[in-house]
């Protein structure tokens, strides 16, 4: 049973450390080349979009083709601001983790357009079911950085009361669901939320995001089946950032087909989009939202992007991919590309970019200073350990109250 006799197909290995980066597998379409179907178009006319790639920005930074959402420069500037804030916030929190002041962190660098353009294309009362790499949704919806930082600190202002690892936020009034550490669970839950919205006759939709790696979980199949059967008003987003920790998107089933192409098999339109093209992401999200609102059912969107940083603070990507791979990524950087486009429109400059970064950095520092006053591991106030026993049930059962009292006695209170 030696390996050379085996007929088992193992997907080809991606470029590994020491090898030149290789993105020859990545199929793209020229900007502006993919048609934009009517939202009522039959599935067969939409099907080619699952293997093409919707792109609006060309290499020169001009917006072209039928998917151009024709956003005002002011809106684009807002989008740029959210993306830059997301990136600088991530960078700052990573440094804070390295200093040992939070236990863990996970960046979304390189993928900011997916979340920011997505949130901007939806309405504030649409319900979002994110994965752990969608911090841009929080930023675009205006959650204060202080609140996010307090969650990462598990301090006295932590929305989770110390119950969750850093970045696993939630925001009830902002219509963003709790992030789970267990992959893929949010995907079918978003479908259920959307089914309830339809059942209640509400004009709201749900949108969920999942990594391409996590699409292998059965929950992905549950989501697509339920969404299709009930024609739920939901947008199902696969964020294909090429990597799931150390395994390439081929191990998730991306070798012979796209992730968008999963949709048509279930009767759901699947659209593949350049995830680093702010305008294209916005346009496709808008198209899917309109379909959902008009009662035309779910859409599956594959956002093709690149995880520019480590998976999290727990791993070192130089062990499994070439260090220079990020630079070879054919779809560039979402922030640089939007900047370029704004420059082409005459609505941006290097100077303004510089001022924006400085302003946002100062804001982040200010927020951290405030967050720290609500407690850090080494100083300031801390949560009451007795909160440990709250919220297991709505009312604390007697048996649990006894355990709480036991701990209280042990801690000398």
């Amino acid at each position, binding site marked *: 049973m030696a390996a050379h006799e085996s007929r088992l197909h193992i997907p080809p290995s991606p470029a590994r450390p020491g090898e030149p980066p290789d993105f020859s597998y990545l199929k793209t379409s020229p900007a502006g080349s993919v048609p934009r179907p009517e939202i009522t178009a039959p599935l067969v006319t939409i099907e080619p979009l699952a293997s093409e790639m919707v792109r609006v920005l060309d290499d020169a930074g001009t917006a072209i083709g039928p998917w151009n959402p024709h956003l005002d420069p002011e809106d684009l500037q807002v989008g740029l601001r959210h993306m830059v804030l997301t990136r600088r916030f991530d960078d700052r929190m990573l440094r804070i983790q390295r200093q040992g002041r939070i236990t863990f962190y996970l960046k979304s660098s390189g993928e900011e357009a997916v979340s920011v353009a997505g949130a901007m294309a939806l309405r504030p009362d649409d319900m979002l079911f994110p994965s752990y790499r969608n911090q841009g949704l929080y930023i675009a919806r205006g959650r204060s950085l202080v609140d996010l930082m307090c969650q990462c600190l598990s301090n006295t202002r932590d929305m989770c009361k110390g119950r969750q690892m850093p970045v696993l936020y939630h925001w009830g009034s902002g219509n963003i669901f709790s992030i789970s550490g267990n*992959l893929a669970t949010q995907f079918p839950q978003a479908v259920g939320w959307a089914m309830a919205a339809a059942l209640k006759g509400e004009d709201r939709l749900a949108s969920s995001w999942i990594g391409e790696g996590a699409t292998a979980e059965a929950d992905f199949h549950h989501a697509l089946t339920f969404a299709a059967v009930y024609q739920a008003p939901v947008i199902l987003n696969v964020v294909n950032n090429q990597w799931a920790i*150390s395994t390439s998107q081929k191990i*998730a089933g991306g070798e012979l087909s796209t992730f968008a192409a999963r949709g048509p098999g279930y009767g759901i339109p699947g659209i593949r989009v350049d995830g680093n093209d702010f305008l294209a992401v916005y346009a496709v999200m808008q198209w899917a939202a309109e379909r959902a609102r008009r009662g035309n059912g779910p859409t599956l969107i594959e956002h093709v992007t690149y995880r520019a940083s480590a998976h999290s603070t727990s791993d070192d990507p130089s062990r499994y991919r070439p260090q220079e791979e990020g630079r070879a990524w054919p779809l560039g950087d979402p922030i640089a590309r939007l900047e370029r486009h704004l420059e082409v429109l005459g609505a941006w400059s290097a100077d303004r970019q510089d001022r924006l970064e400085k302003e946002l950095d100062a804001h982040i520092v200010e927020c951290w200073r405030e967050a720290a006053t609500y407690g850090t591991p080494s100083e300031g106030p801390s949560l009451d350990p007795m909160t440990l026993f709250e919220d297991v049930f709505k009312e604390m059962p007697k048996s649990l109250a006894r355990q709480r009292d036991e701990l209280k006695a042990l*801690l000398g209170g």
Partner: protein
Amino acid sequence: MPQMNLVQAVNSALDVMLGRDPSVVVMGEDVGYFGGVFRCTEGLQRKYGEHRVIDTPIAEGGIVAAAIGMGVNGLRPVAEIQFADYVYPAFDQIVSELARLRYRTAGEFSAAVTVRMPCGGGIRGGQTHSQSPEGIFTHVCGIKVVMPSNPYDAKGLLVSSIEDDDPVIFFEPKRIYNGPFDGDWHKPAVPWSTHSKGDVPAGHYTVPLCRAEIVRTGADVTILAYGTMVHVAEAAVRLAGVDAEIIDLRTLVPLDTDTMCSSVCKTGRCVIVHEATRFSGFGAELSATVQEECFWHLLAPIQRVTGWDTPYPHAFEWEYFPGPARIAAAIKTVMEAS
């Protein structure tokens, strides 16, 4: 003799078995090229090839289901679940299929699958990287459940698990991967090289699946523990200053009731410790067994020291963790009761 930490011991067991038995395959998320997020499979794909050390899609249900199919077709798969907290998508495949295959086919079909998974807390991993779900699996008839407390046992028990023709759930307490953590998190970490059970033979050997080990002999009280809690119990005994007998169960199913009950009959007192939550935890089974077998010898009610009945928190990990102080208090309680 080579010194190994628990990660290296697991790696060595897999290496030995891949080398000896061509039907052994290792599979799981990130286990191949990367060598696993805890590095338990480091170097194995390079040595045995991509066809025997297989990177899988992220789908625990798929991993266990495929392992069952491979097992039915004569392979001996060793599947890794990246964290025990992520085993639940595989629950149906384990409970309804893996555990019952032999029974429902009157022995015509079976799958010799070993499912490894890191478990336990103490690494600031919050509720999705800290759980101890062993009690959920000990309640299922037809699977063996193992949890080592040191590198020597880890290797010997894992070899036995892979060689066993029945399915085995093999829990690896991740807090002791690198050293025998005794619950005192203020102290600097101690490496396995300072512990006699860090001496691990390089080749093939087994530790049987059904035998507990007395890690400290004593006359006054029996402490039943497994995994990380064996070391925490040792610290608690030093703290309490009592002549305690500590039993490392090693295999939870099948359980070595002889070793544990003859000890309790001797000491007349029993303290049970585990990291997992208390209600319907494995401690309840141990307590019932001790009561049934040793009732007339007991001098005091049996005590359980466990995680609180809440999800595993991120803050207050050490208030949650059943550390030496809580165990010492329970020892005191049983000593004073008689």
